[in-house]
């Protein structure tokens, strides 16, 4: 069963000047995680805002848990949780204050709101910080609290809009394990991200979007195969370029690509190929300035899918204008 289904969504801003969504369709199977992968300005946030009933599309339709988001937004709000890019909690209040307030707004009643707040604080490892104002929290703690706030009534569908953007590696790891736990609990998740690695870690299925439309859909493995897996990259002095290119081509089996002093080519055997290249370089008495295996990045995905690199559209510049167009 499709728990989230969007069909032919179109959304333009500034009287059609900016096309945020251009015939975007996607769906999420019940109990699975869909990673929506794309650069800034691709339309990720707009998609989430429409599905979470914060924004109306110009055309197209969408259902969440079988409910039409345009016709019955108030019913949709009862079954969703939304956790945004920016921790949307009251920063002057404490974590506990916030969760109790949201509990009350979900009409849990006083005692239940308090119980649920304590339970969530415990679960997200925030009990110690519960009575401190959010302003004293680290970025990771804020995100966890924000996530907790979206889980108060155990939503059927959870929207996570770039849950780890701006977090340090440690915070990102923590957040990932929290999300993975949730997923095991059976909630259906739509998660947006700029990082292929994140989608890889968390999502069952990935939709790559660019310029407001889905350009590829599939499992992480399928996408990676399409992109071409790992790449061997060696940076050398100018005089060694020709010889290095020869070595890399031999190891890779594909013709090596040279960009200034960096020679690169796709490899299939990862570290084994790396070692072989090293040995060959050593025999040739070439001392590489830098050598490594690079996993495909969002840029690589984009390059192979679209033929152009991910273009960053300044979404910040678009957002304040949204109010003009309803």
């Amino acid at each position, binding site marked *: 069963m499709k728990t989230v289904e969007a069909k032919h969504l179109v959304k333009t801003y500034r009287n059609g000047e900016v096309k945020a969504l251009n015939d975007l369709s996607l769906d999420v199977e019940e109990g699975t995680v869909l990673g929506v992968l794309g650069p800034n300005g691709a339309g990720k946030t707009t998609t989430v*805002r429409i599905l*979470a*009933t*914060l*924004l109306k599309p110009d055309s197209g339709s969408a259902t969440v848990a079988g409910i039409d988001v345009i016709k019955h937004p*108030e019913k949709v*709000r*009862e079954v*969703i949780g*939304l956790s*945004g*890019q*920016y*921790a*949307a*909690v*009251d*920063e*002057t*209040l*404490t974590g506990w*204050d916030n969760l109790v*307030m*949201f509990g*009350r*707004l*979900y*009409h849990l009643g006083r005692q239940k709101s308090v119980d649920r707040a304590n339970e969530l604080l415990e679960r997200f490892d925030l009990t110690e910080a519960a009575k401190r*104002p959010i302003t004293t929290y680290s970025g990771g703690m804020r995100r966890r609290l924000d996530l907790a*706030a979206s889980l108060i009534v155990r939503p059927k569908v959870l929207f996570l809009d770039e849950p780890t953007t701006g977090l340090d590696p440690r915070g990102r790891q923590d957040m990932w394990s929290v999300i993975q736990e949730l997923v095991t609990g059976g909630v259906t998740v739509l998660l947006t991200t700029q990082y292929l690695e994140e989608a890889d870690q968390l999502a069952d299925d990935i939709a790559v979007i660019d310029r407001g439309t889905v350009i590829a859909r599939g499992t992480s493995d399928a996408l990676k195969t399409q992109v071409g897996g790992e790449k061997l990259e060696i940076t050398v002095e100018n005089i060694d370029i020709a010889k290095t290119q020869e070595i890399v081509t031999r190891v890779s089996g594909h013709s090596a690509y040279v960009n200034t002093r960096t020679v690169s080519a796709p490899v299939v055997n990862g570290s084994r190929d790396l070692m072989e290249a090293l040995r060959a370089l050593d025999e040739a008495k070439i001392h590489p300035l830098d050598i490594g295996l690079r996993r495909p990045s969002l840029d690589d995905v984009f390059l192979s899918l679209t033929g152009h690199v991910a273009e960053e559209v300044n979404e910040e510049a678009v*957002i*304040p204008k*949204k*109010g003009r167009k*309803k």
Partner: protein
Amino acid sequence: MNHAISDALVITKRQLLQLSRVPEVLIFSTIQPVMFVLLFRYVFGGSIDSGQPGGYVQLLMPGIFVQTVAFTLVATAAGLAEDMKKGLIDRFRSLPISRGAVVIGRTLGDALLNILVLAIMAITGYVVGWRPTSGMFQITLAFLFLFMFGYALSWIGIFVGLSIKDARTVQNVGFIVTFPLTFLSNAFAPTTGMPRVLQYFAEWNPVSSMVAACRQLFGLENEFGATANSWPSQNPLATSLIYMLLLMIIFIPLSIRKYKNTSA
């Protein structure tokens, strides 16, 4: 409907909690009016010949009360704009709560804050010689008027906050509008000294009606500048009421509608 009220009260409670968590807000929202009381009382009080028994402070206090509640407009607008910027409004909008609850809750919260600020100012006024001479009933009525005026302006604040969406801009625009509005009135000096055009403006300025109404309710004879025989200066109580009702009739539905349609 039941939920609409309880939801709004949760939002109001949030604002009161904010005050207890960040007491600076309360301190700063009272320091300015208290400072005004002291400055005007001691800087102008000595040189303005008010012809008022009890001195200039009797005329000044109603003016400062009205000015202070007028700034509710800015406070509401800035608070709402800040919530929008922080994404808090988005979160509220994703919850199954009644659509008006967030803005109704905020206007209520700001109104409650006003009660506190007015109380502190009244005490300050008393300390520096303000003595209303009317009865308890009239004095209570005067404060009720002030409360309602602040509440009505708070709804304009909602509209302004939703339209401008940036707290700092809201604050600047707010002061640019409210300062002339409160000074181009009978609040601090008689309107008789103003150029003719400004006199007309001051005469019909809701701030003037409110100040005159409060002065009347506090038992003052001299309404300080209500010179012309214009209707508002003759009937300050009725005029103030009409202004307040008018503002609420226009801005409550307008602001709620704007909130429903706004996406930050």
